[in-house]
């Protein structure tokens, strides 16, 4: 029986052996070399954005959005806009329920199935 003790039962690492076996072992040992450490670092100039607020993309009048957003985002995808029965279900999901509500997601999943069935009806395409 090996009792549980305070010391580490792990063998000391042999850094030289690891370096010889694994290309780059330990290259990012120092957290300063890890690009996502610390997680947040405030540097608004770093991204390449040359605007404080992006210009609004036009054409979003009918665009559905989460009610957890204050307004439509400045940029948005425009493929497959809401249409047909699936579109009506999706609109209800977005208008009535936040992302925090199960009903939001259940309606969206129901709409996905409805849309697939409809698209397979003869003459649908």
């Amino acid at each position, binding site marked *: 029986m090996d009792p549980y003790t305070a010391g580490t039962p792990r063998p000391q690492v042999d850094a030289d052996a690891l370096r010889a076996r694994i290309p780059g*072992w330990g290259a990012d040992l120092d957290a300063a070399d890890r690009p996502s450490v610390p997680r947040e670092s405030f540097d608004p100039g770093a991204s390449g*954005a040359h605007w404080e607020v992006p210009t609004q993309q036009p054409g979003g009048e009918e665009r559905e959005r989460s009610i957890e957003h204050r307004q439509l985002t400045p940029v*948005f995808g425009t493929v497959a806009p809401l249409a047909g029965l699936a579109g009506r279900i999706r609109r209800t999901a977005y208008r009535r329920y936040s992302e925090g509500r199960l009903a939001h*997601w259940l309606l969206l999943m129901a709409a996905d199935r409805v849309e697939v069935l409809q698209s397979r009806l003869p003459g649908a395409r």
Partner: protein
Amino acid sequence: MKAMVYRGPYRIEVEEKPMPRIEHPNDAIVRVTLAAICGSDLHLYHGMMPDTRVGTTFGHEFIGVVEQVGPSVERLKVGDRVMVPFNVYCGSCYFCARGLYSNCHNVNPNATAIGGIYGYSHTCGGYDGGQAEYVRVPFADVGPQVIPDWMSDEDAVLLTDALPTGYFGAQLGSIDEGDTVAVFGAGPIGLYAARCAWLMGAGRVIVIDRLDCRLERAREFAFAETYNYEQVRDIVVTLKKATDWLGADVAIDAVGAEADGNRLQHFTATKLKLQGGSPVALNWAIDSVRKGGTVAVLGAYGPVFSAVKFGDAMNKGLTLRMNQCPVKRQWPRLFEHLQAGRLAPSEIVTHTVPLEYIADGYDMFSAKRDGCIKTLVRP
């Protein structure tokens, strides 16, 4: 133009679609020269992601040539060869200003809990993806970058998601010198996470999967010890035994929503859709990491709740860290690793299919046939 088009779960086709247009002054249109299929695409292909609309094009891993730029684009010009991070992001919101590019608040009207992702359902903003001849790239001055001359197309496309994500996962583990790191999943993400754990000074790296050919890659590419969870009675006990009965210091979930290994979890998540994902690998990570240890989650889960063993995580005093990867933040350091020969991401590419046959590519990757690990797509 030709594009992959979603027609319903397990049904994708290649169809003629209208060319994408400049819709915002900072948009660019990119002619795709190489794309890839990701494990995340399988969640869409299997119908796991709410608001995946018929007629949309997937693909968030792609590189190409700038074909057209909007009037406010300053950093790119027509003809530039560019790599595009999978994140769509504005660069100027509260989150982008702090480096949280994957959590941008200005690009996804459909949800606040996730940023924008190319070709990843309306829940991620409703953008078409790059498994196509052409793609719209918003915020061309922020995301894309000219590919350095020394970098191959294969490496560049793997740097748009898979490699940075694996590397990011190792960072989320806050690995200290000598740590034992357990990685669940030996897909591209798990293989890269395992390999990158060494860069941060891991003392041991253990990879768990059920596919022997992938475990073989984990031994060769990622220098890892491996366990096939189907060939042991209880993977958690096996890992405890292998780690002096303490558990690993760090565990990484590189599996996500469709994890196998528990029939009830798998069935309720993937067939009945009663949970956002099957957290089998995540629960194994929680149970096999040591008390006070860190669990890093790279695996993607849907927006509905999942049956995670939160009580164990709490009682063990674990730190749980996770995110979609902010890809471009990883690039400068990863470029150095590639140039120094410390990482060669294209070593795990097993297949390249022409866009016309992309349905076969999905089918093969989904069924994990033919030793498939990473599949590239050539338009």
